[in-house]
Structures are given as structure tokens and as C-alpha cells.
């Protein structure tokens, strides 16, 4: 009993008449049982002659053009006995010789399909070449006087700010009230080689942390390689340390969110205002011992203290033993002439084609203005093709003020209030912007959410206050950051 043969009929892309097909796959020929080679030859000739004459003879009946559709249908599988005399050519690889036929699984020759399917995926190596780290931009719009507006809370929860700048279009001279706010931005202090345990002593906690908002941040420490510490106004001390220090320190912490599979960084959070942290508690003693004797940590600290009471320069007197320097925030002013400004509509956060620009476009434009990038390039210019988002208007002059230092959120709220008051009197400007940059190396960004550096460590936000006191708030973070609140 001869074994059956599964025959795959013509499939994709074969433009041959089915009778011609066996010619090329002699090992798949559905022959009758028995018969000799002469019979085979006759059979072949018989099959071939009509189809060839069809093919080459009259064009009208020929298998031309889209004739493949006729044969391109799904394979028909037929069980036919395999001729016992037929051998597979020797030049084929063994797996091919065995033939799908004998095993019984019909197989199509997928021709074009496989390329297309593979084209969808790019290899990992080439994809890596195109990838960039994650980044987020959160855009909000609301109204300053809205009772549920969270703008002040957003500002307050972003504790460490290194630069504030605001831009007022159509403004030549700053109003007195704004000037006063800028000059009264308060000083901050740099304390060199301060032991960390000084910040957890009860004297310090009672004089500063519990009486007002005390801000402290290590200076010139890189969050991705050094140890760092920060004291939040809520009384939380956050210490970000590498693995070795953490193991020596002996304090309870948690692994950093962004350290990957192999944890190399730990975060220790100590609540200084906690009731369990009173002078005689075990916890306090343990922390003091760890920071004083077990692993003394020393940093340069940026310090600032905001209190509603009258006590003034106690930070200076408190740290007089250490080198303490007072610093004033550096302020620079500039007036930009003939500045191209995008047109904004407070209700169109995403912009409208031909009518107003989106928040993202504004964000880029503001960056260009702050970096003094030329805005009037042509599409064909060699150096740069950046230009102001459209539609735009040209304003005669715009006032750009930048304040650099260790700036407290309280001061920023004051400044924001004053900027809102700018519109109390009728003004030409449609909107003003206020940009705040955070410290790239602070262990937290908003609230207590962990912050890392990765490629840029950016954490910044920008207010656009419109004449109607609607505002846009844009908050941007880089790869190692939580989504802003």
C-alpha cells in the first residue's frame, strides 16, 4: 500500500498553471499509482502541451496579467498515493528531501508575507539607537482666584528652587510693587562642613524646624554619585546615600526607586517633628548615634529659614561656630526688543490651528527666549531652522528678570501674587510668565517624591498668567521622577 502524498496546490505569487507546477517540484507530483517512467514522461507531456500552448500561444486565453488570482487561492489538499519509483533529487538538503508531503502537513511557500511581518519589528540594538529617556510634561489650566485652584500648593510643595525668571511683554519699567518683591527676596546661607547630626539635635529642631519653615539642601553634591541630604519645611529630613554608606549608617531606609535591579542607593527619611522623636526616645538616640559616631556625614549646606515671627538672623548666630556665609539672590534684568511672541488663548491649552499656540509650543519658545536663541530663522538656513511658533505677534519690548539662588517657595508665591496684581491696572500685555527651576541634585522634587538625575535631572515649572487671571501651569520632569502632583 503506497503512502499518501499531501499536495500543496499553487499558493502565493505563483503564476504557473497548476498543470505546469509539478515540473518544478517533481517530488510533489500527484501521480497515479504504478506506471513506469515512460508513462510519467507521457503524462508530463500531456499535461504540459496544452498549458504551454495556452501560455505562449494566443494572448486572449493566456495566463497573463492578473491570472495569478485564479491560481492564488487557498491551497487545496488532496490525498494521493505517492509513486513508489519517484526519488527526490540528491542535491536537496535532507530535510527537504524528506518532504513535508510524506509527513502530511501541507506547507505553503510564503513569499512576500514574511518580509512584511518582520518589517514591523525593529531589532533591539537599532531601537536603542532611537530611544530617549522618559520625560513628562504636565499642563494644567485654571483660574488664580478659583477657590479650588491648587497653584499655591504646587509652588509650596516644590521646596528647592535655584532660579526664578519672569517675562512681561510690553513692559519697559517694572512696577514698584514688583521691584519691592524682588529686592526683598531674602538671603540664604551657605554653611560649610556641617555635620548632619547638627540638624537632628533638639536645639535645632526646637529653634528652627518647629518655628517656621526651615529649608536645607546639600550644596555641590551630585545626586547620582554622592551622598545628599535635604531638610523639608515639613520637618522631614531626607538622606540619600549610596549602598556602602547605608550599610555603615545603620538606619532604616528604603531602596531608591530608580536604582534598577541591583540597588545601589537608599533613601532614609526621618521625621524630626514626630512625637516619637523627642529627646529621650530610643529613636532619637539611635539617629544621633548613627550620624555622630557610627558614620559621621559632613556636607556643605544651603540653608534658609522662613518664619512669620520677628526673630531675624538667628541662623547666623546659631551656626557661628561653622563657617556661615550669607548670600543674596543674584538678580539680572534685561529688556528684549522686538520680540516675537506666540498668540495664546487661555481656554485653548492645546492651541488651535491658525488661532493660538499650544502650551507645549509656548514652553519651547520660552526656553528659546531664556537661552537667547534667534527666533527668525528661515526653513532653508544652514545653522538653525527654529522659529517662533505661529501665529505670533511682535512686541516692541519685553522685560525679562532672572533671580538665581536658593529661593524659597514662599517668596515665589509672593512674586506670583504680585504678577497677578500687575493686571489690576489696564496693561498692553496679554499674559506674563513665571518660570521656576528646581535643583537637579535635590533628593526630592514635588512633595516628597523621589528625584533622580539620570540624563538631566530637570524639574521645573512655568506659570502663564493671563490678563483674565486664568493661568496655565506647566510642570516638566525628566526620567527619574514621579509624575508631578
Amino acid at each position, binding site marked *: 500500500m503506497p503512502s499518501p502524498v499531501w499536495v500543496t496546490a499553487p499558493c502565493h505569487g505563483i503564476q504557473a498553471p497548476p498543470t505546469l507546477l509539478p515540473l518544478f517540484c517533481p517530488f510533489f507530483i500527484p501521480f497515479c499509482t504504478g506506471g513506469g517512467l515512460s508513462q510519467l514522461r507521457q503524462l508530463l507531456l500531456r499535461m504540459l502541451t496544452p498549458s504551454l500552448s495556452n501560455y505562449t500561444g494566443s494572448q486572449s486565453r493566456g495566463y497573463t496579467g492578473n491570472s495569478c488570482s485564479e491560481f492564488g487561492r487557498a491551497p487545496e489538499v488532496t490525498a494521493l498515493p505517492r509513486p513508489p519509483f519517484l526519488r527526490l533529487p540528491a542535491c536537496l538538503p535532507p530535510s527537504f528531501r524528506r518532504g513535508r508531503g510524506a509527513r502530511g502537513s501541507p506547507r505553503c511557500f510564503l513569499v512576500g508575507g514574511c518580509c512584511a511581518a518582520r518589517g514591523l519589528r525593529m531589532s533591539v540594538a537599532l531601537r*536603542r*539607537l*532611537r530611544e*530617549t529617556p*522618559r*520625560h*513628562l*510634561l*504636565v*499642563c*494644567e*489650566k*485654571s*483660574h*488664580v*482666584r*478659583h*477657590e479650588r*485652584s491648587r497653584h499655591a500648593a504646587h509652588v509650596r510643595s516644590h521646596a528647592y528652587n*535655584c*532660579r526664578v*525668571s519672569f517675562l512681561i511683554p510690553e513692559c519697559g519699567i517694572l512696577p514698584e510693587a514688583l521691584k519691592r518683591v524682588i529686592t526683598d527676596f531674602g538671603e540664604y546661607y*551657605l554653611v560649610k562642613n556641617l555635620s548632619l547630626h547638627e540638624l537632628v539635635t533638639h536645639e535645632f529642631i526646637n529653634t528652627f524646624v518647629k518655628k517656621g519653615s526651615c529649608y536645607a539642601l546639600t*550644596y555641590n553634591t551630585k545626586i547620582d554619585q554622592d551622598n545628599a541630604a535635604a531638610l523639608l519645611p515639613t520637618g522631614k529630613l531626607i538622606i540619600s546615600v549610596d549602598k556602602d554608606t547605608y550599610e555603615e549608617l545603620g538606619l532604616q531606609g528604603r531602596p531608591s526607586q530608580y536604582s534598577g535591579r541591583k540597588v545601589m542607593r537608599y533613601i532614609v527619611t526621618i521625621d524630626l517633628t514626630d512625637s516619637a522623636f523627642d529627646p529621650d526616645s530610643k529613636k532619637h538616640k539611635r539617629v544621633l548615634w548613627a550620624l555622630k559616631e557610627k558614620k559621621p556625614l559632613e556636607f556643605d549646606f544651603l540653608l534658609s529659614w522662613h518664619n512669620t515671627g520677628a526673630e531675624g538672623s538667628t541662623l547666623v548666630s546659631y551656626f557661628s561656630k561653622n563657617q556661615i*556665609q550669607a*548670600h543674596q539672590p543674584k538678580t539680572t534684568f534685561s529688556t528684549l526688543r522686538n520680540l516675537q511672541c506666540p498668540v495664546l488663548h*487661555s*481656554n485653548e491649552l492645546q492651541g488651535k490651528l491658525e488661532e493660538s499656540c499650544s502650551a507645549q509650543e509656548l*514652553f*519651547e519658545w*520660552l*526656553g*528659546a527666549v*531664556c*537661552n*537667547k*536663541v*534667534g527666533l527668525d530663522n528661515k526653513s532653508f538656513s*544652514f*545653522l*538653525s*531652522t*527654529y522659529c517662533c511658533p505661529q501665529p505670533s505677534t511682535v512686541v516692541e519690548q519685553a522685560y525679562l528678570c532672572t533671580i*538665581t539662588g536658593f529661593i524659597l517657595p514662599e517668596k515665589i508665591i509672593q512674586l506670583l501674587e504680585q504678577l*497677578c496684581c500687575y*493686571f*489690576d491696572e489696564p496693561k498692553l500685555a496679554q499674559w506674563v510668565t513665571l518660570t521656576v*527651576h528646581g*535643583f*537637579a*541634585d535635590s533628593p526630592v522634587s514635588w512633595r516628597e517624591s523621589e528625584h533622580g538625575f539620570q540624563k*538631566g535631572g*530637570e524639574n*521645573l515649572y512655568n506659570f502663564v498668567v493671563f*490678563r*483674565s*487671571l*486664568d493661568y496655565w501651569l506647566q510642570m516638566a520632569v*525628566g526620567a527619574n521622577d514621579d*509624575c508631578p502632583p
Partner: protein
Amino acid sequence: MAQLGGGRGATPAAFERIVFKNASEHHYVKVCLEFQEGGVRLNAAHFKQLILSALKELHGEVGAALPVDVLTYEEKTLSAILRVSSSGLVKLWSALTLLGSYQNRKCAFRVIQTSPFLLALSGNSRELILD
């Protein structure tokens, strides 16, 4: 709700929040070119040409076709802010790193800062120097 400060007739904007994830089309790179021996002057066009040649060397014609913009260039310090489409950041960065010479004079690019937001380049806290 309080009255409008500006006295305009429009209703105050309702709260709306949009989160853009990885939406930045471009990345911005602040770079600085250093020469082993000083005194090399380079104008902006030559500077860009140098960057393009670095790209062409490492990534070929395809790399040289990347849209790279020199947004600002300071001839005195040889520092610049470049803009490149996000998918080309790695190519640009690697090409800059592997550039070794300009007109047979040894040089190196230092990447000072990189960010998906141009605004972030204007406030680098690592440049805050107090003394």
C-alpha cells in the same frame, strides 16, 4: 468664585489637566568644544560643519541627514546649544563623543547638559557657584 481681576467678560477657565508623556519632538544639548592647544577660531558655520562631519563619519549619510540645529553659538567659548530630533539624540551624542580632531588639531566635545526641554537648559543648578 471670585470676580475676574482683569474685568473681562469671558468666563474663567475650567480646570483642565493634560499629561504629555515623552511628547518632546526634540532634545536639546548644550555642548562645548575644547582644543588641546588654544587659539583655534571657528565660526558658526564651520562649527556646524564639524558636527555634520562627525555624524557622517560615525553614522554615514543617514546620520548626516539628521536634522541638527545650532540654536546658539558663542565663538569665544566655543559653546553651543544644539537641537536634534529625539530619535537622533543617541546618534548625535555618540558622534560628538567620538570626534577627535578638527583640521589635524586634537579636540573634544564636552556635553554639558542635555534635556528634552529647552527651558531646562537656561537654569542649570550645577552651574550655581557660591564662594
